[in-house]
């Protein structure tokens, strides 16, 4: 259990901002941190990891004090694996050495070999990070995080730079690891479908304050589901054709065209997240043939 109640003054481009967090995260929970950039999401992870120190308050993890009265548990003792946005793979070490460097001294050698196999890194073991693709780097970073045998996994937009297929398979990896190792995971993500797929709860942050906490469905779909079709997507085009408008929405990686009226389009902008819902009474289900 993570019990966090802290304040920290941060310098942002718009001046100073007070990051105030007060929340309890249960053991084994998967939390998504969601909010605009500059809301304090990365700072939240850094405060938990001990990279940054709070100005006041306390952090307690499983009964152990991590921060209280400006006394801070050393970063080395926190058993946190942190997957940085830039992956932070050590350029001077091969894939295998990277994983080895993260492993505990007394951990059996077979564990590293197992991890390499599990993350399908066999052929990359002797390669240096600079020769890897984004998806491969991400897999190495994940394997390295697991080698640490952490209690808590922090992910800073881990999948943002990847193409959709790689993204989907790595989402599955993360979910599997989270469940099989009983981790408490906190992930920063801007991708609503990713959050719905992975997270138990969403913490919404804005301007340093928690503005909402709830399940992904509660957070992103305010109204009841009530049997309607609902998909979240991103507006990629709005086109006027006579009296009506055609809005193209990207759902997963399929562009879908929706007919809309002028009133619906008025406050829509390209790049905005929207829900596409249908009141279809009798939907047809096709089996997909391969």
């Amino acid at each position, binding site marked *: 259990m993570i019990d966090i109640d802290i304040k920290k003054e941060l310098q942002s481009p718009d001046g100073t901002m007070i990051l105030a967090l007060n929340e309890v995260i249960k053991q084994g929970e998967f939390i998504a941190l969601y909010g605009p950039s500059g809301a304090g999401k990365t700072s939240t992870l850094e405060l938990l*990891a*001990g*990279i940054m120190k709070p100005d006041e308050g306390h952090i307690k993890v499983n009964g152990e004090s991590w921060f209280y009265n400006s006394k801070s548990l050393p*970063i*080395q*003792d*926190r058993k*946190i*694996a*942190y997957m*940085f*946005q*830039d992956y*932070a793979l*050590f*350029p*001077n070490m091969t894939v295998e050495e990277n994983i080895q*460097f*993260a492993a*505990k001294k007394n951990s059996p050698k077979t564990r590293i070999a197992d991890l390499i196999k599990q993350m399908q890194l066999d052929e990359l073991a002797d390669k240096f990070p*600079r020769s890897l693709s984004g998806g491969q780097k991400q897999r190495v970073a994940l394997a390295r995080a697991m080698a*640490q045998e952490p209690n808590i996994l922090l992910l800073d937009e881990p999948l943002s730079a990847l193409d959709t297929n790689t993204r989907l398979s790595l989402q599955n990896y993360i979910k599997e690891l989270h469940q099989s190792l009983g981790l408490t995971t906190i992930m920063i993500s801007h991708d609503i479908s990713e959050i719905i797929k992975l997270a138990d709860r969403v913490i919404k942050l804005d301007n340093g304050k928690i503005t909402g906490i709830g399940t992904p469905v509660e957070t992103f779909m305010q109204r009841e589901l009530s049997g309607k079709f609902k998909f979240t997507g991103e507006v990629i085009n709005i086109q006027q054709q006579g009296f009506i408008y055609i809005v193209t929405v990207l759902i997963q990686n399929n562009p879908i065209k929706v007919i809309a009226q002028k009133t619906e389009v008025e406050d829509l902008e390209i790049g905005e997240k929207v829900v596409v819902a249908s009141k279809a009474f009798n939907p047809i289900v096709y089996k997909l043939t391969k």
Partner: protein
Amino acid sequence: MDWQPLILTFQLAFITTLLLFIIAIPISHWLSFTKSKVKPIIETIISMPIVLPPTVLGFYFLLAFSPGNTFGSWLDNTFGLQLVFSFSGLVLASMIYSLPFMVHPILSGLSNLPDSLSNASYLMGHGKWRTLTKVLLPNIRPSLVSGIILSFAHTIGEFGVILMIGGNIPGKTKVASIAIYDEVESMNYAAANRYSLILFLMAFFILLSVYLINRNSKNQSLI
């Protein structure tokens, strides 16, 4: 030709560079992560030798190390160190004189590494020392090489400081740059030319190697 001044020059440059390398790493490491208020002051002091005339440094060394002075006599009484007109005095003065040439490349190398590298290592349970030696330093090899070469070259080119506190004692403080001055004073232009030509060519090839290393490091071949 008397090779002694050249040999002495290289001994001085070698020892100075070695000692500087050892002390510049902790200094640069501290400067790269500290948020202390004294950081600008420390950086200024380290950089002073770049802008100060060497004679100013030499003058103050001479005053400080002189056995007639409190500090100088304390050094003499406690450690038996006489730093004026001695080789060890030259080493100490050269170290201070060349300090920015070692610290600046290492500091800029360390500052250019993303913070996430050291943080990742700390989170894996590794301490500051292990992180520095296993993660940070191996990834700034071109900067380390630049620092070593520049300090070495800068020490070879030293003149003013040595003239002030070292004098011109053959085999002890008469380095090549002093020897050139000495030969010119006694109208011995041929000998001065030999020393000068050797130093000229050395400076050229040393600096050339720095630029070649910097060009290669952009292609990451040294990392």
